[in-house]
């Protein structure tokens, strides 16, 4: 008998081997793309916080420019004119209030000299963005406190710290006490409107109206006091001024209280730069945005995204699990159930904007409108729930992701062996007890898988949210210290929309492009973190309820 491999075997082995290579190659390609995307976003995003050196460019025509080199473009030789490659530099010169443009392009051949002066000062301001220049004077009114770059720099530090503390106090005052009083005044206004609609005797009405008027007056008086104090505090921010000189010699006075941060990049050690880097990351993650989202932090967007995904999970998991339980455990398996199952799967393929429109029509107008008429008639015509808000956005996304949870839960339920159910029933447990105590715990990892997929999908969804409550800038978080603490009717910010808004709706595109990468990186991190948390929970459950190998 011939046991050697025949032609057919050999041919099939050759095909098999090349197929293996093809599959491996496809996987490698996918991995490479993922690594490339994450790497690119990571590099550009993390680079945003790094402080480079500030260059002073002297041009051939005698102009001087001070700023950070932020990009370079190569140009091929122009036939008949130049033979060599030329290029141009992009310089971030800031000073938008003086020059109008924050960025300039300079051709290589225009540049006469580039130097990095030690005393170049970079100011991050509350308004108008960066300022690059040299410090000339520090003055209070007409009194000169310090003169000359070094003296000013020494005197500036302590003064600035004091101003920052004061600015924070003002913010606390605005958000805290003044916010509280405004809240109270609004409450009283609504109470007044409610009174007008109530059926009361004239005496009683007059009495109550007087009480409300009295209290309103009191609050308004309190408000006036605080407002005056606020005004004074604000004035004091502008008391001292830093007189700056641009590279061109133009002078500009900047209130010390307006300055977020002042650094001398060319005089910084590596350690200083690292410290500055961390400080900026912290500011980015924890602070509110400024200058129509192009500066400052993105904390409200992070918070909005996480809270929305959280509320969505709370809504989608019970809904999906109950639906899957009915489909798998109670419904009689037949044509109808199969049809429903196919329909549910297809629901996952409906474009998300369609869900957005549905959410607007159903949740916002119908449900929200009804809630307003029933429970908040006093605030009308200002809508409370009858307008987009985080609750409606979360529910819209819950509808969008419910098929994922249903499918995953059904799979989890199907994986629970029949023997396990029969073991429970044979002990005298009812079907409900069996499902609750044996089947559901055993299917919990599957359910969590569904939740993870739903969360990942929801966190990245932007289109439907734009019409059900997501905004460019929300003045308040949906969570604060005013009763009932969670304000689900409020509009919210979202990282995905922030990326779109900052990257494509901003007039100052050059300045915000790095911000897009930083925000995208953060969005990826937030989604990853949430998923990792859910995966840890799932693995713990898996160990606990490890499905038996029968």
């Amino acid at each position, binding site marked *: 008998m011939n046991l050697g491999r025949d032609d057919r075997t050999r041919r099939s082995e050759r095909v098999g081997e090349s197929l293996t290579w093809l599959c491996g190659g496809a996987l490698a390609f996918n991995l490479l793309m993922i690594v490339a995307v994450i790497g690119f976003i990571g590099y550009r995003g993390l680079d945003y916080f790094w402080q480079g050196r500030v260059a002073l460019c002297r041009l051939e025509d005698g102009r001087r420019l001070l700023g950070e080199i932020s990009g370079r473009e190569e140009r091929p030789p122009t036939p008949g004119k130049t033979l060599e490659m030329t290029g141009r530099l992009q310089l971030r010169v800031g000073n938008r209030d003086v020059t109008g443009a924050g960025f300039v392009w300079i051709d290589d051949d225009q540049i006469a000299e580039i130097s990095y002066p030690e005393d170049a000062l970079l100011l991050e301001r509350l308004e108008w963005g960066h300022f690059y220049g040299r410090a000339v004077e520090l003055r209070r009114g007409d009194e000169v406190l310090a003169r000359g770059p070094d003296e000013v720099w020494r005197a500036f530090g302590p003064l600035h710290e004091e101003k920052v503390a004061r600015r924070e106090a003002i913010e606390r005052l605005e958000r805290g006490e003044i916010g509280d009083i405004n809240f109270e005044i609004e409450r009283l206004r609504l109470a007044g409107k409610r009174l007008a609609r109530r059926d009361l005797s004239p005496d009683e009405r007059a009495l109550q109206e007087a009480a409300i008027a009295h209290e309103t007056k009191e609050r308004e008086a309190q408000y006036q006091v605080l407002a005056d104090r606020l005004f004074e505090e604000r004035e004091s921010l502008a008391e001292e001024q830093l007189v700056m000189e641009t590279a061109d010699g133009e002078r500009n006075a900047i209130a010390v209280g307006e300055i977020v941060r002042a650094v001398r990049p060319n005089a910084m050690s590596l350690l200083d730069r690292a410290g500055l880097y961390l400080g900026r990351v912290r500011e980015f993650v924890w602070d509110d945005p400024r200058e129509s989202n192009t500066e400052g932090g993105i904390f409200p967007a992070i918070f909005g995204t996480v809270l929305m995904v959280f509320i969505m999970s709370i809504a989608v998991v019970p809904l999906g699990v109950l639906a899957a339980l009915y489909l798998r455990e109670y419904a*009689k398996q037949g044509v109808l159930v199969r049809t429903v199952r196919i329909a549910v799967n297809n629901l996952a393929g409906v474009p998300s904007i369609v869900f957005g429109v549905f959410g607007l029509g159903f949740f916002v107008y119908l449900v929200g409108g009804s809630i307003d008429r029933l429970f908040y008639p006093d605030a009308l015509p200002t809508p409370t729930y009858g307008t987009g808000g985080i609750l409606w956005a979360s529910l819209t996304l819950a509808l969008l992701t419910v098929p994922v949870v249903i499918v995953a839960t059904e799979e989890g339920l199907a994986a629970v*062996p029949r*023997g*396990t159910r*029969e*073991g*429970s*029933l*044979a*002990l*005298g*447990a*009812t079907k409900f*007890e069996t499902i609750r*105590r*044996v089947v559901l*715990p*055993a299917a919990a990892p599957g359910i969590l898988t569904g939740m993870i997929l739903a969360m990942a999908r929801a966190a990245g969804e932007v289109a439907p949210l734009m019409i059900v409550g997501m905004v460019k800038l929300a003045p308040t978080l949906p969570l604060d210290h005013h009763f009932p603490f969670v304000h689900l009717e409020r509009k919210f910010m979202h990282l995905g929309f922030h990326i779109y808004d900052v990257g494509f709706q901003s007039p100052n595109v050059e300045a915000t492009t790095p911000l897009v990468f930083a925000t995208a990186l953060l969005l990826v991190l937030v989604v990853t973190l949430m998923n990792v948390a859910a995966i840890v929970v799932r693995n713990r459950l898996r*160990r*606990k*309820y*490890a*499905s*038996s*190998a*029968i």
Partner: protein
Amino acid sequence: MEIKISPVNEGEWMESDVSAMGTDDAVRPEIKDALFQIDSLSFWYRESQALHDISMDIPSRQITAYIGPSGCGKSTLLRCFNRLNDLIDEVRIEGDIRFEGASILDPSVEVNSLRKRIGMVFQKSNPFPKSIYENVAYGCRIHGIRRKRDLDEIVERGLRGAALWDEVKDRLDESALGLSGGQQQRLCIARALSVEPDVILLDEPCSALDPVATAKIEELMQELKKRYTLIIVTHNMQQASRVSDFTAFLYHGRLIEYAETKTLFIRPRKKQTEDYITGRFG
């Protein structure tokens, strides 16, 4: 004793004679202390009939074994005792089973209380994906016992009853799925014992176990028989002859012969029985 080997080929009577066989031919022993009385029980899955007109009495506190080739209806019959067949759609049942004189097939019977009194151990061990403790405590928890002290006692009694206590007493909180196959099956027995049933149904309890684990379970059955009525389904004839007091031979959904185990294995009265136990077919 010499067993006479008949020259008849099995195929000759399998097809033709089986349908002609009446249950009235079946050989039955006298049972005085009957716990179950099966009365002309027939069972259909959709159109196919799985059990044909079975009548027999099952004695209390004895081990009754059902033997027969695969697909002969032994498991179906066993699952009639605790009405586990209710879970399957489109089944039809005729005749009656009386348990302590009362019908258990009656629709008014409270199935959950019935199943509490008639426990079951399955072919594949099916511990819940929970800790060893929770597995045994489960039955009592659903029947409303909540006090930790009571549960502790029940768990210990159940595990001791299933001769598992000494092996697992130090790791009650570990997952039941970490136990060996034989231990898992004894855990299932402990679980069945925990709700203090009167009867334990065993559906091929040793078919997935090695000889050592099988021996342990058989030993345990002898112990359990003192307090419980045991009904076991097995296709291992040696096992039936070793452990049971009475044996019933089912073939094609019919009861062929039912007798004291010794009698059935030494002097089978029916030819089919003899052929089966001598290994001619099956």
